[in-house]
C-alpha cells in the first residue's frame, strides 16, 4: 500500500495530491506538465515536498511534520526514467551491479545475470553504454533499478525507445515478475494505450492535481467524455 499526501512547488507550478494506492500496478496518466515526473521524483525522495507524507506498506519514507526524509537509497524505491542515465564509465554488467554493493561477488554476478535476463539484455553484459541503442539502454536501466530488490518501482515513460511489440512483451514479463516478488509499481505515461494495455488502476493528473483514481477503462472513458465535451464547446 502506497499512501502519500504531497504539497510541492517548482517555480510557479504548484503540485498538490493526496492519495492511497493499493493496486500493485498503477498508471499515472496526464498531459505533459501535469506533474507526473514531479510525483515520481517526490516518491523516490529525489525532491522534497514543502509539506507532506509518504508511506510505503506502513513504513514512513517522508514526513515533513517530524522532519523525516529518508535518503533515496534507503527507501527501497527504484526509479526508471525516460533517459536511462547509465554510468558511461562502467560496463553494462557493472551498471546493473552498482546497487548490489553489500553482496559477495558470486551473489552479485548471479543477480546481475538474473536481472539482465528479465530485461532481455543478457547479451549486452560486456558492452559499454555508449555502444547501446536507446531501447537497449532502457532495458539495462530497468535491470539496474530492479537489481537491489526494491519494494516500489517507479517508471517514468521507461520504454519510449522500444517498439510496440518489444515494449508489450517486456511489460508483460515485468508485471509477472513484480507480482511474484510483491513489488508495487507506479508508471507515468501520457500514452493512453500504455494505460489501457496494462489493465491498471489509473491515477489521472491535471495541472498538479489528481482528478480521478480508479480502473483504467472507467477513468479513461470519463476523461474521453470530458475531452469530447470540451472539444464540442470549442467547435460551437
Amino acid at each position, binding site marked *: 500500500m502506497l499512501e502519500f499526501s504531497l504539497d510541492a512547488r517548482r517555480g510557479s507550478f504548484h503540485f498538490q495530491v493526496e492519495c492511497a494506492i493499493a493496486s500493485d500496478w498503477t498508471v499515472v496518466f496526464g498531459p505533459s506538465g501535469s506533474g507526473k515526473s514531479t510525483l515520481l521524483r517526490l516518491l523516490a525522495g529525489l525532491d522534497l515536498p514543502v509539506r507532506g507524507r509518504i508511506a510505503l506498506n506502513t513504513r514512513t519514507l517522508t514526513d515533513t511534520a517530524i522532519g523525516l526524509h529518508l535518503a533515496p537509497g534507503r527507501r527501497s524505491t527504484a526509479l526508471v526514467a525516460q533517459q536511462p542515465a547509465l554510468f558511461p564509465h562502467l560496463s553494462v554488467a557493472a551498471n546493473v551491479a552498482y546497487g548490489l*554493493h553489500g553482496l559477495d561477488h558470486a551473489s552479485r554476478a548471479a543477480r546481475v545475470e538474473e536481472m539482465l535476463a528479465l530485461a532481455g539484455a543478457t547479451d549486452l553484459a560486456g558492452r559499454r553504454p555508449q555502444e547501446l541503442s536507446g531501447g537497449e539502454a532502457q532495458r539495462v536501466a530497468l535491470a539496474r533499478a530492479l537489481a537491489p530488490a526494491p519494494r516500489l518501482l517507479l517508471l517514468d515513460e521507461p520504454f519510449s525507445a522500444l517498439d510496440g511489440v518489444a515494449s508489450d512483451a517486456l511489460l508483460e514479463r515485468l508485471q509477472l515478475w513484480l507480482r511474484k516478488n510483491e513489488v508495487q509499481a507506479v508508471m507515468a505515461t501520457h500514452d493512453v494505450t500504455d494505460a489501457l494495455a496494462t489493465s491498471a488502476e489509473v491515477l489521472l493528473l491535471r495541472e498538479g492535481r489528481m482528478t480521478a483514481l480508479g480502473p483504467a477503462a472507467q477513468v479513461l472513458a470519463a476523461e474521453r467524455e470530458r475531452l469530447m465535451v470540451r472539444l464540442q464547446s470549442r467547435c460551437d
Partner: protein
Amino acid sequence: MEMDWQAFALSLRLATVTTAILLAIAVPLAALLVLGRSRWLAALEALATLPMVLPPTVLGFFLLVLLGPRTAVGRGITALLGHPLAFSFSGLVVGSVIYSLPFAVQPLVAGFASVDTALVDAARLLGAGPVRLVTSILVPLARRSLLAAIVLSFLHTIGEFGVVLMLGGDIPGSTRTLSIVLYNQVENFDYAAANRTAAILLGMSVVALALIYSKTQERGARRA
C-alpha cells in the same frame, strides 16, 4: 653559481605534500559545493576562492601574525608541535595549502558540476552515500578536472614567492625554495644562474600544461 639542487628538491617536496593535502581537502569540498543545498555554501565558496584575489604578501603576512607567538592559535600550535610554524617547512605547507586552495577547488567544482545530474540521482537511488558518489561517479567522470587540479596546485606551489618569503623567510634546506633562489640570484646580478633557475621553473610549467592539453586532445579525438 652552481644550481641549488637542495632548493629544487625542497620545492618538489613542498609541491608534492601541498598537492596531496589539497586533494584531500578540495575533492570533498568541491563535491559539497556542487551537491550541497545549504545557503551557506555561497559564502564557503567565496572563502575558498579568496586566496586567488588576495595579494600573496598580504596572505603571508596574515599567516605570519596568526601563527606567531602573539596569538592564541600560534601559541597553541607551538605548544603542540614544540616549535612555531612560522619559518619552518610545516609552516610553508600550511601557507601553500591555503594559497593554492582555489586552484584545486575551482577545476573540481567545474568538473563535478558538468556531470549529468541524472547520473547523480541514479547513483543516489541505488544507495550510494556521499563518499561512494564522489569516488565512483564524480571523480571518474571528472578525471580531466582532477588532473587539472593536481597540475595547477603543483605548479602554483612550485612558483609561489610572496607567501613563502613572508612566512618562511630564506632558510637553506628548510624554507628556501626555487623562487627564493631565483630572487637571490637576481639580487646578486647572477643572471646566468637566474636564467637556469627560471628555465627549470618554465620547463616544469610547460611540461605540465602540455600534459593537460594532450589529455584534452585525446578526449576530443575519442569523441570524434
